[in-house]
């Protein structure tokens, strides 16, 4: 390079095409190997990408489904009706969160690779683990926002339905009392009335429902991390989806494998090593199975919630670290 070129490089000026290279602050900044702002940029980008793929349209189906269940099937007892409403709503939340976690995440890396957008990102000063973390967090934000919307709608519908059912039940008792005023003096009738109203309230809107929603979110978060890990070494999106579904299924039986492995079953054969491998590799989804209990009106212990949250953090850490290890050695 001659002196003229050095001078040009050092003092960029506007030229005939209008290109000039003013010194940016980045030129003097040292490169940071971990940048929360970079990760946040990738997170919000992933979130925007999924939103603009119109994934939120499913919320319309969800809304329609729970409103239908809440107000169209009125042949049950109030408790049954509320139980069905919670069952269907939490089931739908679980289904949508699972679909997002598996199908949405499985698409991310292959699509970036196919469109070569991955090259343009990783050719910037972006460490590969930050790219993965951005993708993971983007999906988690997406699932969280979707669940927030579904939860708000779900609580509103359950709350409204509960109030209607309480009022209808109270009105029915009041009408009975108007017909038979002597029942007002009957303590067992009064107790019966209070019990009926309490049963509805017990099946209605309670804080424990939030525990169930939180458990669904945590489970979907683990599935997102698992799917991301699979997609770092999978060669096709279909393989990623099928493998992740397999992990999801096996994860529900992980506790059985763990129990078998720890039970001191006799050595020999393949059962015990297999149970050990399952216990080590797969997440324990049984831990998150509190929905049925919550739907039945059972209370959820705070320690269980803390345990679930802690285990989820651990799973996310392990699976993301494994994904990062695989991805950092991947030939793109």
């Amino acid at each position: 390079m001659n002196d003229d070129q050095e001078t040009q490089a050092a003092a960029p000026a506007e030229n005939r095409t209008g290109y000039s290279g003013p010194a940016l602050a980045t030129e003097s900044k040292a490169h940071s190997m971990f940048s929360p702002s970079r990760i946040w940029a990738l997170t919000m980008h992933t979130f925007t990408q999924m939103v603009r793929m119109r994934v939120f349209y499913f919320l319309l189906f969800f809304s329609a489904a729970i409103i239908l269940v809440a107000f169209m099937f009125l042949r049950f007892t109030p408790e049954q009706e509320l139980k069905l409403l919670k069952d269907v709503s939490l089931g739908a939340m679980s289904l949508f969160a699972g679909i997002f976690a598996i199908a949405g995440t499985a698409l991310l890396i292959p699509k970036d690779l196919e469109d070569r957008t991955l090259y343009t990102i990783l050719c910037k000063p972006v460490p590969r683990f930050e790219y993965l973390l951005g993708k993971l967090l983007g999906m988690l934000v997406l699932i969280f926002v979707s669940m927030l919307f579904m939860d708000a709608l779900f609580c509103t519908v359950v709350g409204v339905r509960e109030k209607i059912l309480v009022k209808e039940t109270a009105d029915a008792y009041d009408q009975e009392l108007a017909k038979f005023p002597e029942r007002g003096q009957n303590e067992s009738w009064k107790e019966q009335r209070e019990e009926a109203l309490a049963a509805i309230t017990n099946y209605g809107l309670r804080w424990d429902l939030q525990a169930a929603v939180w458990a669904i979110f945590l489970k979907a978060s683990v599935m997102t991390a698992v799917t991301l890990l699979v997609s770092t070494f999978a060669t096709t999106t279909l393989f990623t989806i099928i493998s992740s579904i397999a992990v999801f299924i096996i994860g529900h039986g992980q506790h059985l494998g763990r129990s078998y492995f720890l039970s001191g079953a006799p050595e020999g054969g393949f059962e015990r090593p297999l149970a050990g491998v399952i216990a080590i590799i797969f997440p324990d989804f049984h831990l998150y199975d509190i929905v049925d209990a919550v739907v039945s009106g059972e209370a959820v212990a705070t320690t269980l919630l803390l345990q679930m949250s802690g285990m989820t953090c651990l799973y996310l850490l392990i699976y993301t670290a494994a994904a990062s290890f695989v991805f950092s050695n991947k030939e793109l």
Partner: protein
Amino acid sequence: MNDTPDAPAVEIEHLTKVFRVPSLRKQTVLAVNDLSLTVGRGEVYGLIGPNGSGKSTTMKVLLGLLHATTGKCSIFGRDSSQVDSRKDVGFLPENPYFYKHLTASETLDFYGRICGLTKAERRDQSARLLKLVDLEHATDRRLAGYSKGMLQRIGLAQALVQNPRLVVLDEPTAGVDPSGSRQIRDLILALKEQGISIILSSHLLEQVQEVCDRVGIIYKGDLVREGKLEDLISIEDQTEIILKNASPALLEKVRALAAGDSTEVISIGRPRTTLERLFLEETQ
């Protein structure tokens, strides 16, 4: 490794890349074989070769997308496998699609953010680069509606978003119409005027000839020829004499004597072939 002021923009030393083919026989493919090259600061280096010759593999190793089997690459003195070496690099891949859900300004904002630009810098860079690549009219249009040429131009803009000192362009004019191709060529020349180092891979040899200072020809993973463009395309065993106002008689004498007394000799040198002809000779 820190940026050393006297280090070349790119230094590739004995790079070999072997791909393992997924099969039971453990087959391998030698994509790049002991390739060494240097790109000086402010130099435009053309990397040419037939499809599958190893150009893109070389570029990917340089950009840290692939790991070298043996050998090493450095960018401004920094090991190119390290992430911080990419602070000064802009890359336009072949046939980029980008994120179709983003508009042009959102695209540049995103790439600016991951390069650590501040909000004000991103805004300024976005406005400046969109003007540079002549996409001001389509700033708020999503890339899904962009033509091929427009995508190449926004691709070039994203490559320049952090004002890199090295720009790697892989087939920047592939699929672009002649007018768009000329526009991109002018942009490359403008970058060259700014002293930005460029590695250009292209099949448009005329364009390579127009913009490159030095050229390397890769064939089956080997760098078969490399050097300054004028040296490469000169025919060494021939001499060219250009005469002005030469009469036919004189030309006869010139032919006989290869010299003239009253005739002005404009230049004497070696006649040149075209880069295209050289390329075909070296790769067939």
